[in-house]
Every structure is written in structure tokens, then in C-alpha cells.
């Protein structure tokens, strides 16, 4: 049976539908962000950029910038350790031989957990009284290292990042492992013949050859930091005060708890702008580097 253009369209239809719905929703969100919609029922009262003015210069300025600052903390503190640990583990797994079969699922397991589950677990571990972290410090005679963790407004965001690093390292590791396995074995053999140690091989052979994996890992993790929500919701509910709020959390609270639907839509437009502003230049830059 010959495949015709009609077949192609038929098979593409679901995809087209998804794309249409997605862009339709985005356009709808932008439209809502320009309206004065407060309350449960839709209010189509156009008031231009007023919502953005309230967010950037008005009553919600402090809240917006707290969320923005926290998203930036996520961006800076979360990506580097997750990527580095992932690469390190991937190379380690490549070296350990048969034990890999046991170890790989072990490191991958966290990513299979729901964030609600891992968030609850980590909140227990961070518990200043009964939590395993402080108690471990106390057992080792390092009681002065014990911290209030998520109960400390200055530390709480970093605690959330810690939980996320634990959860996402396996993801980075998988992509790196695939990249390392993709490399021709001759390179490793050549390095060994030249007398390179494992550390030297890692530094001079592995790292220069996994650039494309890094690009994917970092781009995905950037998106993770921009849409982080569940861990914040479960572990701190944005608290203490609003100290751990991030943009998606702010968006949800404004839209559904406070029913400032216009404001909530404006926050999601800001998230979209941020995502495009961060990811597109990054992808462009790393693609050019890879091509070079």
C-alpha cells in the first residue's frame, strides 16, 4: 500500500492538535494577562499592561522579586552540582564493570519518585529536632553543625535545591552514561596505552567528548529550575513568610487561591519570557560551539 500525503496528514493530526491547543492556550494566557480578571467567573475587562505594572512596580513588586531571586538561586545553585555529579557518577559506572547493573537503578530510582513523595521525605530529613540530618551531626559529635534547615528563611531555598539535586542527579547520569557509551572504545584504549590514569582520562578524554550531552542536560535542568513547584508546595509552602516562593508557586497562589487570574496569567507570561530568554541563547551558543 502506498503512503500518500493524506496518510501523512492523518498521522500528524494528533500532533498538530496538541501543538494548536498548546499555542492556543499560550495566546489565551497572554490575553488574560492583559485583563482585569479578579474572581471566579471570567472578566474580560482589558486594562493593558496594568497587571505587569502591579507586578514590576506596584504592590506585588517585593513578592515578584523574591520569587525571581529564588528562581535565580535555583538556576545558579542547582544546575552545576547536578550536572557535575551526574557526569561523575556516569564515568564511575562506566569504570565499575558488572556492579553497574545494581548501581544504575539505584541512582535512577529517585527520578521515578513523585515530587510529593520525595518532598515529604526530605522535609522529614530536614526536621531540626527529629530529622536524620541533624541527628547524624549530633551522633558524630558535630552538634554545632545542626541547623534549622527549612525552618530558617535564609537556608530554606538551599534545602529545597538539595532535595532537587538528589532527585535529578540520576537523570543527568543517564544522559552522560549514554554519551560515554557512544564514544569509540579506541579512544579509551589509546589513553590507557599512553599511561593515562582514570582521573586524567576523565579530564582529557571524557569531558571534551560529552559536550552534546551537557547541552541537553543543562537545557533540561534550566527548564526544571523555571518550573519548580511541587517541592516548594510540599516542603515549605513558600515559607517561612514568602522566603522560598518561586514564580510558578506565586502564579498558582495568585490565580487559584487569591483568584487574581489576570495577575497569575501575567506571572506565567513572565515565566515564558524568562524561559525563552534563558534557553534560546543557551541552545544557540552551545550549538555553535558543538559545530565548531
Amino acid at each position: 500500500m502506498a503512503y500518500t500525503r493524506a496518510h501523512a496528514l492523518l498521522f500528524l493530526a494528533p500532533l498538530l492538535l496538541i501543538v494548536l491547543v498548546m499555542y492556543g492556550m499560550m495566546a489565551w494566557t497572554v490575553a488574560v494577562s492583559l485583563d482585569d480578571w479578579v474572581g471566579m467567573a471570567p472578566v474580560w475587562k482589558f486594562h493593558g499592561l496594568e497587571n505587569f505594572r502591579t507586578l514590576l512596580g506596584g504592590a506585588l513588586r517585593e513578592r515578584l522579586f523574591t520569587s525571581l531571586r529564588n528562581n535565580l538561586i535555583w538556576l545558579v545553585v542547582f544546575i552545576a552540582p547536578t550536572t557535575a555529579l551526574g557526569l561523575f557518577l556516569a564515568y564511575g559506572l562506566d569504570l565499575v564493570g558488572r556492579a553497574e547493573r545494581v548501581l544504575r537503578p539505584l541512582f535512577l530510582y529517585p527520578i521515578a519518585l513523585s515530587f510529593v513523595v520525595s518532598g515529604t521525605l526530605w522535609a522529614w530529613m530536614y526536621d531540626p529536632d527529629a530529622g536524620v540530618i541533624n541527628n547524624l551531626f549530633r551522633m558524630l559529635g558535630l552538634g554545632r553543625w545542626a541547623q534549622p534547615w527549612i525552618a530558617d528563611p535564609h537556608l530554606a531555598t538551599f534545602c529545597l535545591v538539595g532535595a532537587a539535586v538528589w532527585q535529578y542527579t540520576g537523570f543527568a547520569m543517564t544522559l552522560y552514561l549514554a554519551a560515554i557509551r557512544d564514544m569509540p572504545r579506541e579512544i579509551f584504549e589509546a589513553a590507557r596505552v599512553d599511561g593515562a590514569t582514570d582521573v586524567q582520562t576523565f579530564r582529557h578524554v571524557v569531558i571534551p567528548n560529552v559536550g552534546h550531552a551537557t547541552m541537553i542536560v543543562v537545557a533540561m535542568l534550566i527548564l526544571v529550575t523555571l518550573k519548580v513547584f511541587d517541592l516548594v508546595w510540599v516542603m515549605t509552602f513558600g515559607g517561612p513568610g514568602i522566603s522560598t516562593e518561586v514564580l510558578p508557586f506565586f502564579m498558582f497562589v495568585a490565580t487559584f487561591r487569591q483568584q487574581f487570574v489576570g495577575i497569575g496569567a501575567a506571572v506565567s507570561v513572565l515565566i515564558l519570557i524568562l524561559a525563552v530568554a534563558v534557553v534560546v541563547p543557551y541552545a544557540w551558543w552551545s550549538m555553535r560551539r558543538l559545530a565548531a
Partner: protein
Amino acid sequence: MIRRPRITQWLVIMLAAVMTAAPVLYAADQQQLVIYHWWTAGGERQAMQVIFDAFTKKNPSTKIVDNPVAGGGGITLKTVLLGMLAAKIPPDTFQSLSGAELKQYVDGDYVASVDDVWRAQKLDANYPAVIGKMTTFKGQHYGIPMNAHRANWLFYNTKLFNELKLAPPTTVDEMIAAAKRIKSSKPNVAPIAIGTREKWPAVFLFDVTLLSTGGPDVYEKFYTGQLNVKTAPEVRAALQKFKDLIPYLYQFHGAKTWSDIAGPMAEGQMGMMVIGDFAAGLLVQAGYKEGVDWDAAGFPKKPQEVFLMIVDTFVRPTGAKHPEATTAWLTNLTDPKVQGEFNIVKGSIAIHKAVPDTTYPDKLHQEASRTFKSKRIVPSSIHGVLAPPAFLSDWQDILTRFLYSPDINRALDEISSAMELDKVSDSSGWYWAK
């Protein structure tokens, strides 16, 4: 191409036809009641079953299509409903809280008047007047309440209070004095238990502080935006007193939920805590005995003891598909027998005046029922019963921040700005309507 046997084709077609038609036929054949609510936790689920059983007994031909949505105070349910109502596919009834929360649905034209049920069941006579006020908007009733929780309880550890010869405090000043005693004689005990990881328990503690320093009139005015927050001495005084409490709070409150700290309070690692009557159910379930491990007292007693109330309510959505079932459901809720049996399991109290105080097996709920009938009832601020929900969300942020950095002037600025943004005064007109 292989030709499929004809019989298979027919089977497939018939199966498809039956599957499409079945729901339609089924719905036409049987009356339904599609209900959405947030009673999903242990005791709540069983309590709901009590109402379902009573309803089915009276309406045997109506099938209940139950849609429980977990999430305390209905925050998740509201998200679900928002979509359904906007899409004009309302259920036959859903749960709300009376007051500002209910007003949101009224403002969206999503609920219809229940005046017929209200009049037929003589609720003006059978329910306290304040309940009528909290369900009345634009001159009509829009919800049928069925149970009340009391928010102003002070739970305390009985053994600890006996050992230190402490009487249950009646004002916040006495609470601070008791906390001081506990702190000096038992340095390892946190005098005041509180868990603010979910934020809202901070509002419970502030509410009793405001009632103690300002009394119920100030309380009602504050939460409906009738006070000029920046200049009113009452708000400053309440915040000052709230600040005085901070040194006696369990220090890691930001890492705990209210249910995390109820146990340690009953065990004697913490002294006392301000929370709603729902904590009693949790304590009893965990095996702690009222009068032995813990006790509770209405708080504050001065300048005036009030019943700070949260009311669960069901509504009649506009355009509900099975209007008779909705009416039957709402009517069933007003039955004193149903209210009594439901509330024993739910851990709240009935609001129908015909339900005797002795209905409840425990001391706490008997006292709650007595107070409900004899003392002034004040709508609680929590979950948007008195104050609009938008403000409540900002308010718990302001209060939890204050607990970590108690700057009164900054807090007053924050409250004033939130009240303006959330239009607290404008949207609270219903409470003061005559």
C-alpha cells in the same frame, strides 16, 4: 489485505453502540446527585457516609455520584470547581464555607438561591442569626450550613499544668505568664506549640491574640477592613502582644505542621497550643486521653468569651442537572438527627438548635455546643470565612514572616497594602448589610 470475518465487524459495531448509549440510558433511567466535597481524611470520610446513608434512605431512587477532592479547607476542590463552573458543567451540589468564601461563587453567578429550603425548614428560627447572615448576599440565602467548628481552643498538657499548678489561661497575658513559668521550671519543654509549615496555624494564634487584646468587635472590624490599620491602636497592640509570644513558641515551628506538634504536646514536650476542635479527633485517634493527657479550654475568656466559628456549607449550583436531587440533598442536611449523627463522627458540632449538647460523647464538644448556644458567635477569619480568601493568603504570609522577624511597622505596612490590593473593605460589605 486479509478480510476479517463479518461477525467480528458486527460485534465491534454493536459494542461501540452500546458503549456510547449506555451512560445516556443509565442517566435517563436513574436520578443522580453529583456531589463534590473535600471530606477525605479518616473520620471525615465516615462522617460523610452518615449523610449519604440518611439521604439514600429518604431518596432510594437517587444514586449519589461522589467526587471527593482531598485538600484541607477545599483549596484543591476550588481549583477543580473553577474549571467546571466556568465550563458550565456544574455538579448538583458542592461544598463551600459560609461567608466570604461563599460570596465568591455568588459573585460569579455560579450558585442559585436556596431560600425555598431555608423557609421550608424554618432555618431563621432553627439556626443562629449569624449563620443566616453568613449565607445571605443580595438579600437571598445561597448556602445550607450543617456543622460548625470552633477555632478558639487552647489545648494544654494536663500533667504538666497539674505539676506546675497552672490554671488554664483566660487571656494572652495569662498565657505568657504560664509560658514563663513553664520555661523557667522546665527548660526543655517548649511552652507554646505551633507548626507553621502550612502557615495557617499562625492565623489561629493571632486570632486569639486579637480577641484577647481587642475583643470581638475589633476582631470583626479588622477582618472586614473597617479599621485604618496604620493608625488603629488596636491592631498595633495585638501585633505587640503577638510579638511578646514569640520567645515562648516552639523554636522550629517552620518545619512542622499542626498535626506534627499535637503529639509532642500530649506527651509533655510542649505545653499548650491554640488550634481548632479538629485537633481533638487527632489526639484521641493517637491514643491520648482527654482529661488525662490533654485538656482544652475555650480561649480567651476575657474580655468576652466567644465561639470563633468555621461553617461547612453546601450549595445549589446554577444550572445543576438534577434540581430535585439538589433540593432533597440540602433538605436532608437540615435534619437535626442527621446533623447530630454526622457531627459526632466529624468532630464538629451541629448548628440546628434542636440538637442537644448531650449528643456528643466528649467533654470538648459538649462544651462547644453549650458555648455555641449561649455565647456570641464570631465568624473565624480562617479559610476566608470572614475576611476574603485573597487576603487570607497574604495574611498568613505576613504573619509567618513576622514570627521570624517581628517588625511591627513593616507588618502594619504589609497588612495595609494587602488589604488595599485584596479589596478587603469593598468586598466585606455583606457582613455589615442590615
